[in-house]
């Protein structure tokens, strides 16, 4: 099942790039390429629950992305104001923020979301907590209040 999603994703990527659906020759070559990539990926053991989660997660991802995008816009506005401010009002600090995501994919999504929102960068993923560099105190508090974590947990879905 996981492998099927993987191959569909890969074939979709290749097909969208190519777009030559009427050209039989290129379609055959494309199918051979997909098969070869699937073989290489199997040999490398790339396809597992860490990187290619179940279908449900991908579906819920489409809800998560708009939320994340809005967060990015909001915090960009904050950084925007500070960069143009002559006084440069920043108070950088290192903070540790606990996380309780269960899956590796969820943890990575969470960590990357923190990095994507300006004002906070995930430096390290430790046991059960992130080491975060925050540009301002407000940004640091923003991570710890847990609203983004709740969204990521929704992305992970029910416990299996």
């Amino acid at each position: 099942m996981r492998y099927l999603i993987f191959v569909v994703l890969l074939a979709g990527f290749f097909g969208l790039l190519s777009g030559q659906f009427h050209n039989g020759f290129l379609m055959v070559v494309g199918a051979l390429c997909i098969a070869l990539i699937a073989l290489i990926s199997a040999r490398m053991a790339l396809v597992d629950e860490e990187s290619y989660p179940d279908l449900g997660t991908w579906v819920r991802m489409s809800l998560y992305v708009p939320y994340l995008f809005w967060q990015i816009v909001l915090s960009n506005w904050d950084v925007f104001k500070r960069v143009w401010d002559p006084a440069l009002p920043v108070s950088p600090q290192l903070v540790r923020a606990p996380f309780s995501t269960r899956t590796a994919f969820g943890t990575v999504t969470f960590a990357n979301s923190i990095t994507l929102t300006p004002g906070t960068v995930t430096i390290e993923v430790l046991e059960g907590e992130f080491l975060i560099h925050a540009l301002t105190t407000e940004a640091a508090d923003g991570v710890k209040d847990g609203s983004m974590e709740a969204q990521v947990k929704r992305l992970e879905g029910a416990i299996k």
Partner: protein
Amino acid sequence: MEWNEILTAIFLALGVLISLTGSLGLLRMPDFYTRLHTAGKSDSLAQTFILGGLIFVTDNWQVAVRLLMIILLLFFTAPTATHAITKAARLDGLEPWRRG
């Protein structure tokens, strides 16, 4: 100008403004860790605006798909790259700057 060109122009202007802010931040911020905040991330929003804005002026689905693809890919790879640099810097013993 057609409506879609105006829309694109607005998006481009927004994107360029954000991008310039990021570049300015890269110059103004006091140390590496603070520069990260402006450089890597403002750019990811800026490229979303610029590439997203370009979608309005193309009537070719393959171009639109490529633009969307680039936006999506950068949303995955940009934070990964930022994380890798930061971690390398920390391992190398670069200390964060503190005010005062």
